[in-house]
Structure formats: structure tokens, C-alpha cells
């Protein structure tokens, strides 16, 4: 939605623009991608962006998992959500880029009361590009988010963008550590089972087929962890019903236990709990 707001702002500023997400499985807590292109003429290409001029990183921990700056153009820039200064960042081997940083999570928590950092990061982005002014971005954010989430949320998101813009630090980030792209199974057509029928198997170290979800510990994706206050729980089972990953075990006495191997920290259980018996605590915990 922030990528759309950026494209919207670019159009308002007289440019041609497009924005789209990665069209695939998207879940809260899992890494996601979105793309935007801005140009002075009509944009005809519809493919994903592989050589960006600018990369916005919504979670700095991604630098340890993914080659985030892969394909970044010579002279390309970064906007990163981190309390660190650009010079303190490790952005991957052989990369050096003008970078703006801000603690967007803190700003979002302050302005939106939730750690949704995308609009704040639009503000940070405005410090390292001059095609779209921050005022226009705020206009677009206010209108787009306002339409969908209500005028108050629209204003809060615009304010989030402004605060991040205002507080961002610009410097040069660089990196020495090599971040290898995880090995992915990309079989040739004759190596694939007919009809993509997969028995339980391990391919390139990754389990596939039935039961493979057991070994893919998606709890690693979590950045906040539900904390269960059993004394408050009225055993209504709503969290148990609502967990999209079936990561909440219902015990014999109808109290709950979280399975932190798979809990992605989406926070739906905390949202749905009628008696506030679940708190979301920042960070990856197990208790």
C-alpha cells in the first residue's frame, strides 16, 4: 500500500509511475517485497525490478538473511529502518551506498500505536531521492490510507511519514560480509515429478511434499512474540480458532499453549482476545 502511495505521489508530482507487490503467498511476519517505478515517460515494462536505483528496507534484520542490496545500481541509494546510523550498518559485501536511516518502528509505535512502518519509511525514502517531495508523499498517504482506514488513520500515517523524514540521518553505509542467497530448488522440466506430484522428500536440503511444513520452522520469521497471561484467560478459545498457522495448542483444561516453532508473531490472537490476556512483546522469545 505504501508503494502504491509512492506511485500516487509521483503521479501527483507530474511523473509516470507504477507500483505492485510481489504476486505470491504473503503472510504477516514473512518477508515481503513491493516494487515501484518512477519515470518521466510512460512506463511500459511490467516485470519486477531487478536493478533498483533505490532500496527501502523495512526491517534491518533482513540484511542478515537476504542479499538485500543485490542488483543495486552504481550510485543507488538505501533507506533503512534502524536506530543505527548509516555508517554503523552492514549492508553486504562490496556495497557502498548513500543511505538514510530512521527508527521507523519507534516512530510508527508512537504515531500509529502499531509497528507498521511502511509509511514512516516513505518519509525516510524522501531523504534520498528528489523526484517526489515529502509534502506530496504525505498528501498521497493521507488520501490513500484515509480512504481505506478512515481519516484519522490517514492523518496519522502522513504524520508518521513526516516524523521519519524529519528525523532521518543521511550518511554512507557499506558492507564487508558475504550474504549468500539461500539455495533454491529450480529443477529443469525433466527433473520435476510428473504433474508436480511430490512425495515426502528432501531436495537441496529443503523438505518438500506432505509433512514438509513440520520441518520449516516458520517461527523464525517472528519479530514479536505473544505473551500469555493465563490468569486472565477465560478459555473462550477465540485465539485458538483464529490462529492462521494452528500454532496455538488447546490443552485438556482449555487453556492455551503457543508453539513457538511455528508462531509467526502476527498478533491476531492478541487482537481477538476479549480480555487482553495476550500481549505482543517485541523480539523473538520463547516462553
Amino acid at each position, binding site marked *: 500500500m505504501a508503494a502504491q502511495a509512492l506511485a500516487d505521489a509521483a503521479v501527483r508530482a507530474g511523473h509516470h509511475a507504477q507500483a505492485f507487490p510481489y504476486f505470491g503467498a504473503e503472510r504477516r511476519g514473512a518477508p515481503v517485497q513491493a516494487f515501484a517505478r518512477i519515470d518521466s515517460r510512460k512506463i511500459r515494462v511490467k516485470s519486477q525490478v531487478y536493478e533498483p536505483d533505490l532500496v527501502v528496507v523495512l526491517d534491518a534484520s533482513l540484511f542478515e538473511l537476504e542479499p538485500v542490496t543485490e542488483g543495486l545500481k552504481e550510485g543507488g541509494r538505501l533507506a533503512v529502518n534502524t536506530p543505527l546510523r548509516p555508517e554503523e550498518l552492514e549492508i553486504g559485501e562490496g556495497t557502498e551506498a548513500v543511505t538514510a536511516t530512521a527508527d521507523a518502528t519507534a516512530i510508527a509505535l508512537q504515531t500509529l500505536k502499531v509497528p507498521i512502518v511502511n509509511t514512516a519509511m516513505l518519509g525516510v525514502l524522501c531523504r534520498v531521492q528528489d523526484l517526489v517531495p515529502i509534502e506530496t508523499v504525505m498528501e498521497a498517504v493521507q488520501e490513500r490510507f484515509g480512504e481505506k482506514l478512515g481519516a484519522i488513520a490517514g492523518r496519522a500515517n502522513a504524520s508518521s511519514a513526516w516524523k521519519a523524514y524529519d528525523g532521518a540521518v543521511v550518511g554512507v553505509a557499506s558492507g564487508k560480509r558475504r550474504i549468500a542467497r539461500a539455495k533454491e530448488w529450480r*529443477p529443469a*522440466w525433466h527433473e520435476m515429478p510428473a*504433474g508436480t506430484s511430490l512425495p515426502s522428500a528432501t531436495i537441496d536440503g529443503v523438505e518438500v511434499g506432505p509433512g514438509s511444513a513440520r520441518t520449516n520452522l516458520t517461527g523464525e520469521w517472528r519479530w514479536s512474540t505473544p505473551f500469555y497471561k493465563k490468569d486472565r484467560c477465560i478459555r473462550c478459545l477465540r485465539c485458538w480458532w483464529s490462529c492462521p498457522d494452528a500454532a496455538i495448542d488447546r490443552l485438556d483444561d482449555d487453556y492455551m499453549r503457543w508453539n513457538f516453532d511455528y508462531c509467526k508473531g502476527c498478533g491476531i490472537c492478541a487482537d481477538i482476545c476479549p480480555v487482553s490476556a495476550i500481549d505482543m512483546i517485541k523480539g523473538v522469545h520463547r516462553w
Partner: protein
Amino acid sequence: MVRMTITANAAVAHAARLARVALVPGFPITPQTTIIEQISEFINDGEMDAEFIPAESEHSVMSVAIGASAGGVRTFTATSSQGLALMYEMLFAAAPSRLPIVMVNANRSVGAASGIWTEHNDSLPVREAGWLQAYVEDGQEALDATLQAFRIAEDARVRLPVMVCMDGFILTHTVEAVDVPERAEVDRFLPRFDTTNTLVPSDPMVMSPIVPPEFAMEMRYQQDRAMQASLEVIKEVDEEFAGLFGRRYGGLFEEYRMEDAEYAMIGLGTWVGAAREVVDQLRAEGRKAGLIKLRFVRPFPATELREALKDMKAVGVFERSASFNGFGPLYTELRSAMYGTDVPITDHFGGIGGRDITVPDVREMYEVVERRSRGERVNECTWHGLRGEQG
């Protein structure tokens, strides 16, 4: 072998019985219904050890067929027209899942003008669903092609579903003498159902999961290769069938009096019978006419047809399915196959909506083909038997 005087629908039911089909989902639709009725009777009378599942729609019929085939049993069903249309979605699920289902489609016109009569506008539009499509000429071939279909579908090089198409009423409900083989003979031709692609609870597998773009293209290419491989398998199976039963259908297509032919007609279905008569007449008059009876539209035997037709002075394509402000599907495919040759080809629509096709009708069509080769101006596409001027 027993010689019976039966309809093509009954012949097909016998084929399903002889093939030891284990599961038949069905939903009635004219003119197919008597196939599944006959199969129900076989099951009821203990002549066929199979489960019949009456489903609530054709969409469900194909869904059941997919489940049954994935469950590891030989599966057969039959449908027609709007029934095939209602299955559309599941046709596209069966083929990529590589399930060797065999289905007979009684060709009948689809939609309005509502009719129960034959037309090929039900099956030809789904020729990109990934199924093999065979078309038959008479009751004997209906039985034989259905038996062959199981062998072709289940061949490890193919593993694709096969649709056997036959003209509604004019074939499905016409009684003819049909040699019905003994079960032991068919057992020699058709081994036990066996695929690797089977869901077994004790050894589970994921079948046709959501396939992201990173894999879907390779999966489609597998389908393409399997369809390509079926060209040879069809020929082999027809040869083996001929060895066992003494009947041979030419594999992908039959050439009738093509040895020294200069003009050829090509088409599929019951029309071929009348065309044989016309070719005989013309030959008796000293004219060098020949005929190609196309048995398979998918796979389309492009290379083989080009070889068979490259020296013709003219070729006429007969289609029982119109294309609006366009060219018929067979014509389009044949033109592509013949690209680079200078053989003039004309397109001929006839028998639309089940209108009868007579010997003089076919003869009229042939005359257009010859006129074209003499350089006369004729329509690229002619509607035969149409009342009123053609623009």
C-alpha cells in the same frame, strides 16, 4: 468375440466393461445417457466389477473422476455438450495432474440455438485443455478407440487423459454390427491399471499443489512433451491392437485412396463415411480424389499431415464446427502445418447444428476444392447447405 447389433453408445459401454474400469462417475445428458445407463446395468447384473457414482453435475463428475484416478483406479465417464462445458474447469485440472482418465464425448451442439443434434463445437473448443482428442467414424471404432484410449492414456510416456468424441445420435444412437471382443482378449491388450501417480494414505504425496511461476512453466512443458510423445504411442498402440484384433485405424489418421491422389478432403467423425462414397464415385470417373480421416486433433499430427498432403493440387477441410469471421479450427491447424507449401486449402463448414450430411453434399464440397485448384475464385470458407447468398 461376439458380433452384436448395437448402438455406438452400447459399444462404448462394452469397452468400459472389457477394460475392467473400476469407477464410473456419471450425470445424464442426451445423447450420452445410454452409455452410463448401460454401464449401470452391467454393474447391476454383475458383469462389471465397478462403482458407479451418480454425481450432482458434470463439474462433480470430472471432480470424482480426478479423485478416482488419483486414487489409483481405472476411471471412465461420458458426457456431451453443455455437460462438457460444465466440466471445463476440471478438464484443465485432470490433464496437468497427469491422470489417465478416459471419457467419451457424444458431440452435440452447445448453447443456443438449443439443439440436441451433433456439432463439434463442444469438444473442439476445449482442445487446449491438455486432453488427447480422438474422433471416431462408426460403432466398431467407438469400441476399439475407447480400448485404445486406455492404453494410450496410461502409457508411462503419456499419462494424459483421453477424450473419445463421437457424433451425437447419428452415431451414438445408430445400431450397427459391432464385434465385441472377449474379456481375455482385451486383458492381453490392456494390462492392469498402474501409475506412479497414486495417492496412498500410508505413503502420502502432494498432488497438483499451488504451483508458483517458478515451477509452472516446467510443468506445462512436461505436458507439451507428453502430448508430443503420444504421437508415437498412438501409432504403436494401433499396430498392437491390429495384431491382436485384426482391425487397424491408421494410427493418427487414415489415408483413403491417397496413393496417387491429386485432390484431398480431410475431416473427422461420421462425415468420413459419406466422403469415402464420394471418393469411390470420383475414382470411378477417373478423377484423382483421396481422403484423409483425421483420428486425433490432439496431438495434432502436423508433420505427418504435411508429408501426406504436400503434393496435392488442392485440399479441402471439412468442419462440423463454425468459426465466426474466422477460420475453422481444423483449417487453422492444417494451414499452419502446411505453411511454406503452395497447396491451396479451402475451408468447408457443414452439418452445423446436426443438419444432415448427404453424399451429394460432400460431392459439392469436393467440386469447390477442384475449382479452387483451377484458379477459379471461391470463398476461402464455404458454408455448405446454407440457404441464401454467401458474402
